[in-house]
């Protein structure tokens, strides 16, 4: 199969899953109606139009963007650290976000707090997004300042991991002193969901992710050089520290934004780059970045579709589904190839 045929297949699969996402759910809406509603038709019932336009469409767009973003962020991190098991959250981005959310939910949650937010014009879900963003920015700024100073990637990896541990410890100490409904609210945040991004939030969510993905696309060439090691990249004329800074910035922007709006989404960031390397038999980032975007979007949509249990009113935790799909994929990939970072078999 030629590369362009593979890309067409990926795009087609994404289109099919997208249509399924819109059509299936707690109620089955016929394909024809879905298309007519998307085209702006007014003939179908008001409730179906609202379901499609206000619930399923933003959910599907969120899943597409989040899946693509996590895939790209994972690809960048795996290449930077030349480690197949690295995920987008490895530098502590999601731990920082959890810390921010935990602070808002557990230290300050309650009627009085909600009233304060209302006066300040910040609303419940926005407060969580802001808190998560600030939390991941805090961890990220520490990691980035280290990235400017230290030479070794492993040192950087350890710094990121350690900050992640510190953030998680603070979260568990806070959980110890929270009351039940606060704890419940925090735990449900960690479940992850594509369903809570509304059109209003999309105005920030979508452009931010677009910038992150564009940045990764621009970095495709230096990323290729990194595959063969820092020394090789340097001999190719790559300014290692500067490029490393931008790789981390791009991946953190992607993973941090997704975590802020959707909660920590498991496994897509690890599994998607592997799947693309296997499918396209290449390690060229100029091919991999767009492939990861398509594959990440498709898998995220598919996982969401499964989590919503078509034909029922029931919702499963999204992270349980992404891990159930992702884990066997990673095992299969690792069993099939000796050098997982290389292209092909």
């Amino acid at each position, binding site marked *: 199969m030629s590369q362009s045929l593979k890309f067409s297949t990926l795009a087609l699969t994404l289109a099919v899953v997208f249509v399924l996402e819109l059509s299936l759910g707690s109620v089955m809406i016929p394909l024809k109606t879905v298309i007519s509603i998307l085209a702006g038709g007014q003939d179908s019932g008001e409730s179906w139009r609202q379901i499609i336009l206000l619930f399923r469409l933003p959910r599907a767009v969120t899943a597409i963007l989040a899946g693509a973003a996590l895939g790209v962020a994972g690809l960048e991190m795996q290449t930077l650290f030349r480690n197949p098991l690295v995920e987008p959250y490895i530098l502590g981005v999601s731990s920082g976000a959890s810390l921010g959310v935990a602070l808002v939910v557990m230290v300050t949650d309650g009627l009085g707090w909600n009233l304060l937010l*209302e006066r300040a014009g910040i609303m419940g879900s*926005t407060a969580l997004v802001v808190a998560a963003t600030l939390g991941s920015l805090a961890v990220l700024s520490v990691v980035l300042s280290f990235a400017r100073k230290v030479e070794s990637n492993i040192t950087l990896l350890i710094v990121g991991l350690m900050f992640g541990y510190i953030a998680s410890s603070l979260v568990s100490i806070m959980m110890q*002193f929270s009351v039940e409904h606060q704890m419940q609210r925090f735990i449900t*945040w960690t479940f992850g969901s594509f369903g809570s991004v509304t059109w209003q939030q999309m105005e920030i969510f979508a452009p931010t992710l677009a910038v992150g993905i564009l940045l990764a696309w621009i970095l495709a060439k230096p990323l290729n050089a990194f595959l063969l090691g820092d020394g090789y990249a340097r001999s190719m004329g790559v300014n290692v520290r500067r490029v490393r800074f931008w790789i981390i910035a791009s991946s953190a922007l992607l993973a941090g934004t997704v975590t802020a709006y959707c909660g920590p989404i498991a496994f897509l960031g690890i599994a998607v780059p592997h799947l693309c390397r296997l499918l396209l038999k290449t390690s060229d980032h100029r091919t991999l970045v767009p492939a990861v975007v398509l594959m990440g979007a498709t898998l995220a949509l598919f996982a969401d579709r499964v989590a919503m249990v078509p034909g029922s009113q*029931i919702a499963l935790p999204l992270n349980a589904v992404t891990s159930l799909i992702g884990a066997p994929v990673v095992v299969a990939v690792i069993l099939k190839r000796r050098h997982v970072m290389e292209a092909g078999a």
Partner: protein
Amino acid sequence: MQVSGRASSCLALMLAVLVGASLSCAPKPQAAAASTSSTPANASSHGRATVRYAKGFVLEYHDGYKVLRVLTPWRGAKEGFTYVLVPRGGAVPKLSGNEVIIRTPVRRFVVTSTIYVPYIAMLGLEDTLVGVAKGRMITTPSIAKRFAEGKIAEISDGSGGMATNYNMERLLSLQPDLIMLYGTGNPTYDFHEQLHAAGLPFAINAEYMESTPLGGTEWMKFIAAFFDKDAEAEQIFAGIAARYEEEAAKAKSASTRPTVFRGMDYRGVWFMPGGGSYVAKFYADAGARYLWDDDHSQGSMPLTMEAVMLRARQADFWVDVGSCGSLVQLAGFDERYRLVRAFQTGRVYNNDARMSPGGGNDYWETGIANPDRVLADLISIFHPELKPGYSRVWYRQLPERGVQ
């Protein structure tokens, strides 16, 4: 022989000293407790209670002892618990051996949930309560006061509910006669295995498993039995049940059945009580139609927001919206809540009108113990014409903007 005999008598002496020391160190039970609950030889002299609404426990009277059986301590439980209540000084009956013997009346009582606290006050047993999980959550005035005075200890270090947070040393030092707690079947939350290992007497209360409000409240007879207050519980509960039935009969006469649903979306999952739950029964008895009454499950269903919106878009009433204090705050969590008709007409009610300074909601304390008054609140929401001039206790209508 001589040596070993001396050794054993020495050991006995040491034990005696130890036991004596620990007894003298222990705080003495309140004198008032001793006077309110004299110790008769025969439990039946204290009157009896008959279980009418609760399905989860059985109370049997025998000569010289009582038997309490908890049939299903938690969802999916394979076995129940049997408690044999024997008056202090009375002979322990010979039974199968799987029963737990509890001496009555209990004098040093510990509870791990605020749900049981109002019953203690209703039965006049304040003096017996020596420990709670978290004191600052308590809203019942007489007991909140005793906690503030330092007469009640806190046995949970972290947030209530987690088994790992209990302070076993503090609990042991309280020397409780009985610890009442609920079970979930999940070892992360369940504490009774640890109590069993420590040899502490405990009773599992499965009030939350009842499918009717009156069934839940009738567990006050379960609590009362340990204190030989059976007759008092019978009388208090009879009053509650009569008032509840009276209110329900009034609601039945209403000409309309407005639709109602409850709760909020938590990150893509909306936990909706099943149509067989006590919540559904409350709404039905208050003259409303619960939108999920076609379902018969007793627990909660994890629904998608889409599914809830499909069914609840035209709902007349929306109740129990977590910690939201205004419509603006509610919409702040998700803009799409505005689609619900009850939101548009402002008929959104929350059960948070009475909160303790520590963040405890009195609805879950006094409200659960007084379902007749909760029902009156609900009827005044769904059918204000039936409750002219009534002022609600726990429910309040959400204002457009927050006020304080």
